């Protein structure tokens, strides 16, 4: 089964990459772009297992490894 974990900066954490892209787009005339934040998408290929089990496992991986709770949050996305 396939699954995804999305890792994003918490609100308020400085994201210079996002800011640079936002500025770049606005300079090109995309004035409707108000803010850009960069995150990470981690894709998993898992053995077949019950949904809840996969969710628990990815939740564990999310908070021990994929996200740093000081600056980031994460979201488990199952199909």
């Amino acid at each position, binding site marked *: 089964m396939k699954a995804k974990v999305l890792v994003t900066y918490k609100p308020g*954490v*400085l994201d*210079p*990459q996002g800011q640079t892209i936002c500025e770049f787009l606005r300079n090109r005339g995309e004035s409707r772009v108000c803010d850009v934040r960069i995150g990470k998408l981690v894709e998993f290929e898992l053995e077949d297992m019950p949904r809840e089990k996969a969710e628990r496992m990815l939740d564990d991986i999310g908070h*021990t*490894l994929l996200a*740093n709770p*000081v*600056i980031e949050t994460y979201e488990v996305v199952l199909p």
Partner: protein
Amino acid sequence: MIFAVITFPGSNCDRDCHDAIGRVLGYTARSVFHKERALGSCDAVVIPGGFSYGDYLRAGALAKLSPIMDDICRFADSGGLVIGICNGFQILCEAGLLPGALIRNQSLRFISRMVTLTVETNRSAFTSAYMTGQRIQIPIAHGEGCYVAEPSVVEQLEREGRVLFRYSGTIRGDEPDGNPNGSINSIAAIVNARGNVLGMMPHPERVCDPLLGGTDGQGVFLSMVSYRSRSRQESAPMAPSSADDS
């Protein structure tokens, strides 16, 4: 005085630390590979700079789960001196031994140059060889050195005098107040609440040998030595953290 210098895959300042501690300052540096489970007997731990695990995922994110980290945490919990330099600072934050985190430099550039630091206090295990308010020159070399933490954490660090070094160079282009990376309050080094774990982005080991252009970094290691010898006189010797030296 024995310093255990940890090598992770991708560490690249481990030999510099070895050289500064051993050849230049005359103490003993012992290499410990990250796959070891025990530090063996030592008086202090050095987590050197570099790019452990290629900085994949986040700087220090994978190194914090290396086998040796459990014993480093035990050593720190028992009051042992631990210093994390550059990538070592990032690893200590990731491991939860120090508060906060280090994110991309505000300029998005890797910065490798000499910076001026102010010694905020010499009442610590890592700065007693300096004078409070002294300005010293130590190089930095990092892409992710912007220190961030919750406002309450920063307030606590400041109130408890746990910011040991602050960037304080002259104004230079887009780096106001000589803060090269955008760190909150220009923080360059902090200690944990107990005062035995230090994280710093600048590289003191690179300015120990006068041949390399300066000796301002020696004080960090010499402070640790004098702290250790004082604590040895005051109490029984610190027990080796777990297994023996084999």
